[in-house]
């Protein structure tokens, strides 16, 4: 055997990461999606009907930036800028006025100066406007800009799916892990609960709950967690059950290691493979769940931008092709790239490749 002193030792995780990187399709999907999701938190700076910078009588205002920071007031009434409109300032109008009247005041609008919420009540907005250079993907049945809504809905969909998945994971790993590790009465008790739970007709429960309670982002997450925690709990239970009988756990036990160290240092890192592999598909499930609920009208309350709601309205106005085409394409591309990621993750974590590790 050649002496390989200089060879760097890689942990299994690093090896898998390197393997993942070689899977171009999945890796690039991952990078692009990650960037897009990160940038989508800055959407108010790019797609907004509030101005980025307003210089009015030598004072600076940053309404779009204020949009980003929760708790900071981004609302300026029209009167503050001497604009004769009811309610909030209309920055696009203001800009035109100031430019035509050669005013000292100036303002800079975001790159795409429409918000997902403004509708026909805003001057200049029209219903069913086909795609044009102003409204890239047209407007919908209430005159809202489809492109703006599409982008904001991207952030909401992914956030929903990620929060849902992470929450499910936390619950699944802790309850399932404890069931597998401690076994006995605790395990039996939760098994019965899981069985009863999984026999409930969950779609109806979700629909009933969201029609009684006023749906919101967090409530929907909560409701869907009630449905989804079972799958992961079962998965983790089985993993812990299998892993705890392995000799390295016996060795840790026989040297007097504490239960919590055994769980977190030994068993957990070794039982994450199926869970990590499952993660992208769980995100796909989360996105589809939200689209489904929104489509049926039991999802996020209007006027929250959401693909499901857009699809629903689009299908009612099927002749306005842009209203159907846009959400379908956005959803399709997003789901496709997540599936690519999932595929690459699964490949990278395939135990066959490193079968000696198992």
């Amino acid at each position: 055997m050649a002496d390989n002193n200089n060879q760097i030792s890689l942990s299994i995780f690093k090896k898998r990461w390197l393997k993942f990187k070689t899977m171009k399709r999945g890796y690039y999907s991952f990078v692009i999606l990650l960037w897009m999701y990160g940038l989508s938190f800055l959407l108010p700076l790019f797609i907004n009907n509030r101005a980025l910078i307003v210089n009015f009588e030598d004072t600076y205002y940053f309404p779009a930036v204020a949009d980003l920071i929760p708790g900071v007031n981004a609302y300026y009434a029209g009167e503050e800028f001497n604009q004769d409109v009811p309610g909030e300032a209309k920055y696009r109008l203001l800009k035109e006025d100031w430019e035509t009247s050669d005013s000292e005041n100036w303002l800079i609008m975001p790159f795409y100066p429409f918000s997902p919420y403004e509708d026909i009540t805003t001057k200049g907005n029209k219903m069913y406007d086909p795609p044009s250079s102003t409204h890239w993907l047209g407007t919908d049945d209430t005159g809202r800009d489809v492109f703006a809504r599409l982008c904001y809905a991207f952030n909401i969909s992914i956030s929903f799916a990620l929060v849902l998945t992470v929450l499910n994971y936390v619950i699944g790993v802790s309850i399932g892990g404890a069931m597998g590790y401690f076994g006995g009465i605790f395990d039996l008790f939760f098994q019965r609960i899981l069985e009863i739970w999984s026999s409930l007709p969950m779609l109806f429960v979700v629909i009933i709950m969201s029609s009684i309670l006023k749906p919101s982002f967090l409530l929907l997450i909560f409701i869907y967690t009630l449905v989804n925690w079972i799958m992961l709990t079962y998965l983790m239970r089985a993993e812990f059950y299998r892993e705890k009988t392995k000799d390295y756990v016996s060795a840790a036990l026989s040297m007097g290691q504490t239960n919590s160290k055994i769980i977190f240092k030994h068993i957990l890192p070794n039982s994450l493979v199926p869970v990590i592999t499952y993660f992208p598909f769980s995100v796909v499930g989360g996105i589809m769940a939200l689209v489904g609920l929104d489509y049926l009208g039991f999802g996020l309350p209007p006027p929250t931008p959401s693909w499901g709601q857009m699809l629903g309205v689009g299908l009612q106005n099927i002749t306005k092709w842009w209203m159907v085409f846009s959400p379908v394409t956005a959803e399709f591309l997003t789901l496709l790239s997540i599936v690519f990621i999932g595929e690459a993750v699964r490949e990278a974590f395939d135990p066959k490749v490193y079968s000696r590790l198992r």
Partner: protein
Amino acid sequence: MSQHNTLVDVKNLHVHFPVFGGVFSKKVASVKAVDGVSFSIGKNETVGMVGESGCGKTTVGRAMINILYHVAPDVEISGNINYRFENSIVDFASLHPKKMQQYRSKVQMIFQDPYASLNPRMTVAQIISEPLQIHKNMSSKDMEDRVAWLLDKVGLRLEQAKRFPHEFSGGQRQRIGIARTLATNPELIICDEPVSALDVSIQAQVINLMMDLQDEFNLSYLFIAHDLSVVEHISDKIIVMYLGNIVEMGDSSEVYHHPRHPYSRSLLSAVPLPDPTRKNKTRVVLQGDIPTPMNKPSGCAFRTRCPIAKPECAGDIPSLVDTGSEHWVACPVVREAN
């Protein structure tokens, strides 16, 4: 072996795994994995334990480090496993796992499968320093030195400390396992078929290493194996087990060269190496399969396969009797024939 030098005294150990069934998960049967086993291991002594697969060797070993409850919470253990540490006597069979902590470092185990006994996500240094972190209050510098010293003792190189288990061969992994058990200065190491998974050439290296370490650290071994020639080489005393019972026990060369119990004889005649001292003995080939420990035959458990079985063998369970010079045999038929 005088009483004074005894390290551990196992008395009438029973380990039964209950089997649950039916609607209300009632206990319907039990697997009698260990069914009344008594032996002792002296200080600095090696006791070899042999027997077919499933006869309860691993279970005895795991009972002796009191970890059976972990995988089988319902396990029923009775009897005594009395350890004599310094001047206190501790019974591991009845000690609550929570009270075990202070004694854990004194008895360690080397596991059968070198691929499963090392956490694949920890480096060698982390694996070996884990027991040190638990039992020794050491600075990280001292810990590093100690790990380096242990690696040297088991014949591994220091730069291998940062590697992960999957980068090692089976023999090297077993050395890592040995270093881990040595870390806490144990008095007894239970070696559960430590070389069965290794190539023959590597087996000898690992066994020699273990014998050297025994001299250096005054260790006692319970050496579990199914290859009698390996056991004879390393042990002072041999225990032959069949279906949860000891059928023969005695001085190593005595049992190896003059086995008396029909089961030991068949085991020995199965040893493939040509041995001039046993040339003329006839080969005994066992008929049938080993019965399940859930449903053991009455009387002598071996009677379903014994070539010299008599009708009375179905009666009482034969007890282990000294036939002279500490050679114990559990077969009245053989004893009477003398």
